[in-house]
């Protein structure tokens, strides 16, 4: 299972949509796109880096070569990709609790969609339709989505503060510095890795540990035998 890269989890869900209702699904997304206020609920879920929905018509699967067989599908399909912080359960549950109506709106026309409430059938629906990732890359495995956003604030504030660093007395500098820290108190914080940063990092560390153990064993075997002091 390679769904994790640092603090991010990659979710892939594919669900069938009745082809004759695809336009309705697209219309709902179009309205959401044109009226960003409809996505307010999603914005409150600050654990999301990026998420997307892709609707593929039953005849729209890519056909790139004459020797590739054409798809013969009865349904259109909706792909959902998300990059979020935290565990699978936390994410799915936060969707249910924060935006149950929005969720049902997006998936409403999907075949056998269970609705987001109650939780257990919804969990089962997502689990059934989820696909495991083979390789997941994250440019900042140590950072959560909130870290990326707050880092932008810290950088801007620090650069602005630095413009005034040489002005006035030391005491005035300290006063401005304390103001800076007070203003950034919700944005500062050290970033550390999660217990397993990613499967690749885990494997690398495991190999290092194995190599170190082998080196220690080899040293112990080849160490000169100390002479007694008699």
């Amino acid at each position, binding site marked *: 299972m*390679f769904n994790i890269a640092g603090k991010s989890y990659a979710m892939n869900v594919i669900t069938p949509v009745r082809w004759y209702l695809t336009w309705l699904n697209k219309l709902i997304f179009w309205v959401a796109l044109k009226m960003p206020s409809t996505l307010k609920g999603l914005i409150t879920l600050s654990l999301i880096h990026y998420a997307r929905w892709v609707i593929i018509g039953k005849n729209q699967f890519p056909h790139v070569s004459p020797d590739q067989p054409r798809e013969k599908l*009865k349904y259109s399909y909706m792909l959902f990709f998300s990059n979020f912080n935290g565990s699978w359960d936390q994410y799915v549950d936060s969707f249910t609790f924060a935006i149950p109506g929005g969720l049902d709106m997006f998936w409403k026309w999907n075949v*056998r969609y269970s609705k987001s409430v109650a939780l257990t059938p919804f969990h089962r629906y997502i689990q*059934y339709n989820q696909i495991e990732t*083979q*390789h997941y890359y994250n440019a900042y495995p140590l950072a959560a989505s909130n870290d990326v956003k707050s880092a932008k604030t810290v950088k801007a504030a620090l650069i602005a503060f630095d413009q005034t660093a040489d002005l006035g007395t*030391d005491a005035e500098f300290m006063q401005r510095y304390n103001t800076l820290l007070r203003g950034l108190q919700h944005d500062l914080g050290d970033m550390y890795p999660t217990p397993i940063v990613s499967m690749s990092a885990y494997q690398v560390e495991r190999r290092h540990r194995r190599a170190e153990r082998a080196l220690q064993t080899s040293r112990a075997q080849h160490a000169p035998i100390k002479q007694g002091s008699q």
Partner: protein
Amino acid sequence: MGSISGNAYALTALCPIRKGIVVGEEIAYSDKVRDNLQNWNILPNSPMAQVPQTYLCRYFVLDDVYTESLSGGSAPDTLNDWLPVVPDSIRRSAMPAHDRLQSSYLVFSCNLHGGPKGDVDSYLRGMWNAISGPIREAWGYCYGFDQVTDAASFVTYMHKCMLPATLFFVGSNDDPLPEQLKALYLKQEFSRFAVANQGLDAATLRANYKSFIQRVAPNALSFPTWEPGKYQP
């Protein structure tokens, strides 16, 4: 266009994998692709770390589509389930159909900085120039990839496989990756500085701050900063 949100771009590509078996290894091409991708997981870092402007991306092999056959909550199903007068043949026809894909697909889903116009072609050219070897490992068994010989043909090929996003939501920020990495570096370093310099007199604090700012160079994007994919603090 749904694939662009601010300066971020949602690249989604479904690349059909040829049917057949790898000679000598007795595994299907789709399994070979899966195997090659999983081998990237034991490298010191992902090949994608070398591709400029990649925020997050994933690869997986889609062997087939799924249709849950348990009873569900969509309106036509419920109606049929509740009407005993409806003949069995009609009730059965209301059950979900069973779709099968004719090909497996290599799915590449990438969140990248493409600028306000979503310049995905430059991104793909940069990707080819940085990691053409790993690209061949991932795409080498796909239909039509035998036509790919350079960055331009890779861009053309990818356009055949790309699908537009219906909705793209950016919950993070859409700055260029070097900006984001520098900001993260500054956040980390300044947080540590603030903790380490508590309770000092004003003159010492100011002197320490000056040497700190000289070391971290907030306006220099390229150095010092976080490397893409850095996973140790």
